[in-house]
């Protein structure tokens, strides 16, 4: 019984977070004001973070909150302030092709649905994860650290390079020209 209730609880949380994520996303792309969009995006990202938590990815949850919500979104808001979007907010928000885009994406969605339905049966994804052994033994964070700094040392180093490039690039781009 407890199991069921836990899984029910799981479901409740799942739907709540999913709703948050998807709803936030929809708001993000429909809001007129960029600030509103950004706030909606934060909501959506928080929903996603919640989903991470449900999947026992505590470290990712933290990263999501700190890095994304705290870092990236700050950047966005900063830029929004910088480029002063009042002007843009008064104009048409959607371009002329939105209905074609919608049709196409619905088509893709339908196709993806069909594909998934055909494929999912052959994948055991439809069952909940059977084993949580690996994750329960030690903490999620330690595990990640272990593997990240051993097996995935190389991509980690490369990503540092990537971030270096991003920093140089964004600074270079945003900087006024010397002349």
């Amino acid at each position, binding site marked *: 019984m407890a199991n069921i209730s836990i899984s029910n609880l799981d479901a409740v949380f799942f739907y709540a977070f999913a709703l948050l994520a998807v709803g936030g996303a929809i708001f993000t792309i429909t809001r007129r004001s960029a600030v509103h969009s950004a706030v909606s995006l934060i909501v959506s990202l928080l929903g*996603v973070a919640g989903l991470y938590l449900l*999947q026992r990815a505590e470290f990712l949850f933290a990263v999501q909150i700190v890095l994304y919500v705290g870092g*990236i979104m700050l950047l966005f808001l900063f830029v929004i302030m910088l480029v002063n979007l009042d002007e843009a907010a008064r104009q048409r928000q959607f371009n002329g092709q939105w209905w074609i885009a919608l049709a196409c994406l619905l088509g893709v969605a339908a196709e993806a649905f069909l594909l*998934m339905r055909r494929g999912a049966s052959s994948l055991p994804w439809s069952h909940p994860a059977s084993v949580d052994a690996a994750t329960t033994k030690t903490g999620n964070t330690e595990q990640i650290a272990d593997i990240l700094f051993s097996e995935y040392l190389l991509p980690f180093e490369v990503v540092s390079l990537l971030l270096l490039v991003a920093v140089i690039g964004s600074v270079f781009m945003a900087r006024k020209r010397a002349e």
Partner: protein
Amino acid sequence: MITTTHYVVVSAALFLIGAMGVLTRRNIVIILMSIELILNAVNINLIAFSRYYGDVKGQIFAIFVIAIAVAEAAVGLGILIALFRNKGTVLADEVDLLKW
């Protein structure tokens, strides 16, 4: 019963919404946000599968995806500022000097 498939569906929905944003919003800032949505969709997938397989590679992958998202957002916003400085616009369909 919440299965991996549920997560995949949420992920797909997020992906499509993000794509819709990319395709239809005129404001480049919002397009960049939509791209963040797409990358989050990827991450939901990765986490779900990671859970399903019971290993953390998926989560590690997701960390890298976040890093990628950060890099893209940062550079994108940088370029946007440069563009705004020169053209005074952040609307995607006004970026049309180069065509045909």
